[in-house]
């Protein structure tokens, strides 16, 4: 298994989610995608997208003020 990191700090919504969708499409099953973002709305839209897509979330936490990280596993 490999872990891939997607840095989207500075990008406004919906671009973190748009990029996450594009990035995960390239990954083999079982790999993890770490998405770092600072767009507040993505705290709602990214976990919802993961749940709707059936991708397990293995980590979701704050990195600092208005900075978050979420790890989504391709399944």
């Amino acid at each position, binding site marked *: *298994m*490999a*872990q*891939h*990191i*997607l*840095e*989207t700090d*500075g*990008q*406004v*919504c*919906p*671009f973190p989610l*748009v*990029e996450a*969708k*594009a*990035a995960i499409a*390239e990954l083999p099953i079982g790999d*993890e995608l770490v998405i770092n973002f*600072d767009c*507040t*709305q993505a*705290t*709602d*839209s990214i*976990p*919802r997208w*993961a*749940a*709707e897509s059936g991708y397990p*979330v293995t980590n*979701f*936490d*704050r990195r*600092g*003020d*208005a*900075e*978050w990280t*979420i790890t989504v596993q391709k399944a």
Partner: protein
Amino acid sequence: MLITGLLLGTALGFVMQRGRFCVTGAFRDIWLSRNTRWLTAFMLVVAIQSVGVFALDAAGVITLQEDAFAWLATILGAFIFGFGIILAGGCATGTYYRSGEGLVGSWIALAAYALFAAISKSGPLAGTTDALRSVTVPLTNFHTTLGVSPWVPVAFLLTGVGLAVRHQLRKPKLNIASLPSQRTGVAKALFDKHWGAFTTAVVIGVIAILAWPLSWATGRESGLGITTPSSNLASFFITGDVELVDWGVLLVLGLLVGSFIAAKASGEFKVRVPDSSQAVRSIGGGALMGIGAAWAGGCTIGNAMVNTAVFGYQGWVSLVFMIIGTGVAARIFITPGSNGKNASTTTALATARVS
């Protein structure tokens, strides 16, 4: 009691920030992901407000009146506004509350929006706006045209929105990941917990109802509104005319206060500087929002959320053309492959082996 504008605006900014209530997102999701959860929440605000407003009208607290429908200006303006909110990354209220979160791109969009609303309403473009808005048809609202009680369309709206909400709530419960909580009790509910779309919509609906009598009491005979107050604020900064500072101006200033408090208290405030392309988009989007809202006679709030609640043609036609405008702009600027930023995905993706 102008201060009630500031207080209500603060409450609205707080709720919108905590609930991630984004009308741009609601309209955009229809096109990008065929998702209508947030549109349903938005229409729930309209339906709740509709009941309250006609009750206030029946009780004689307010007296609803409407102008003839300026169809041409409404169609053009709403489309331009819908297009602009995609570029700006937020509608009128969205731009205010994101400003409170520290997004410099939203500060830029907000300044351009207020400036261009003033230019179009009382500045050099006022003649164009007046000319467009003089093209009217003698229609005001649905119930007047149909010759029925306003409670008939209220009943239809409530039924339709009720069915849509039930449809959304009946979807299989998803196990959505949430952030680890740092607080307990009331502070947890206010600052940590994820606010559902429909809970947020109900609270905003109540705030939208309260806006009517509170604003009315100060002589401003209207409900929630963003564009005219923003235009007045810009004009006040230039002319110093304190007459311009009415209940609506304090309402929009309250949005900044409320969203800042919400963002700061929940660890979601950070000054975020946009890159050059987003800065240019923010200026363009804000300018289109100002012109579009002035022509249409309102933004996503004044038209799509408030004028719809009183069944005005201007509100419903605006709603449709704003959604079309966001769809066209989303297709150009967001759909994967059309955006320069997406090309960088492969380079931005760093891969690490995990043992």
